[in-house]
């Protein structure tokens, strides 16, 4: 008897989440912007890999990467949120979001190296597998979040389960501190999820 309102509340919550998810699905980037972003990324990779500034090589690379980008436009950029103009978004991403993320991850990686060295020396481990909830829905965002969790100190992503608008991550934690899902999520994800929510949906 007393469980029924809880059940209804949970159901409504799930419905609202799904509606929001569908809304984000409808507000993706238009196709030509996806083609342009993929083309820019592939062209930068081509220039770095070949390393020759001759006009013939550049023209060949532009043609080939444009052809690949026209076919593969959903692979990289399907999950990017549409906010504002595309040039503004590219500039924000290249000069604010990406350096911020790189600096955060560099310091977390340094800290995790030192922590693993400390664990090896003293063997003060207390491992456990916990389940945390993520607010992200897109595939690329979840992949980047899982890789970042693997590189942050003391945690390793074991599996991801995605059920109808809700995402759960199973994390192997080498020094188990709490079993509460919200506290564990705050401790494990940190500020990386806040960063990812600005770019991906």
């Amino acid at each position, binding site marked *: 008897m007393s469980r029924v309102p809880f059940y209804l509340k949970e159901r409504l919550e799930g419905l609202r989440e799904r509606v929001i998810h569908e809304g984000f699905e409808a507000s993706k980037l238009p196709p030509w912007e996806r083609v342009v972003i993929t083309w820019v990324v592939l062209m930068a990779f081509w220039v770095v*890999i070949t390393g020759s500034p001759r006009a013939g090589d550049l023209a060949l690379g532009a043609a080939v990467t444009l052809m690949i980008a026209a076919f593969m436009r959903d692979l990289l950029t399907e999950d990017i949120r549409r906010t504002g103009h595309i040039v503004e978004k590219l500039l924000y991403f290249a000069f604010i979001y990406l350096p911020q993320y790189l600096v955060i991850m560099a310091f977390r*990686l340094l800290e995790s*190296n030192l922590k693993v060295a400390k664990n090896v020396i003293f063997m003060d481990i207390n*491992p456990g*597998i916990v389940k945390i909830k993520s607010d992200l829905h897109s595939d690329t965002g979840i992949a980047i979040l899982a890789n970042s969790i*693997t590189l942050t100190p003391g945690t*390793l*992503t074991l*599996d991801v389960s995605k059920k109808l608008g809700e995402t759960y991550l*199973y994390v192997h934690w080498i020094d188990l501190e709490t079993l509460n899902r919200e506290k564990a999520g705050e401790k494990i994800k940190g500020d990386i999820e806040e960063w990812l929510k600005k770019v991906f949906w």
Partner: protein
Amino acid sequence: MIEIILLLFGEAVMVFGALGILRFPDVYTRLHAATKCDTGGAMSIILALILIMDAPAVVRAKFLVLAFLIAMINPMVSHAIARGAYRYGVKPKVVVDMYAWDNP
């Protein structure tokens, strides 16, 4: 000066990672040592090589691409090994196992 520090730090981290693979009790904790120490050590050694060598800037950019690929691929491989070991039936030595609660 800073490249010598980076080289020494990378090698020390690599040594601690190998020591962790020998000392930790089961597959998952060993993966902790392998993934983090290999990623950090290899990236710091690559940064030291970028600073120390005299080569055109394109070659250094290629080394940066290599560091990026290491940082992307290493956690994916660790996730694949952990999930494969769990599906194969290797039991983890843990206090609480929420993955076994949901996948009986």
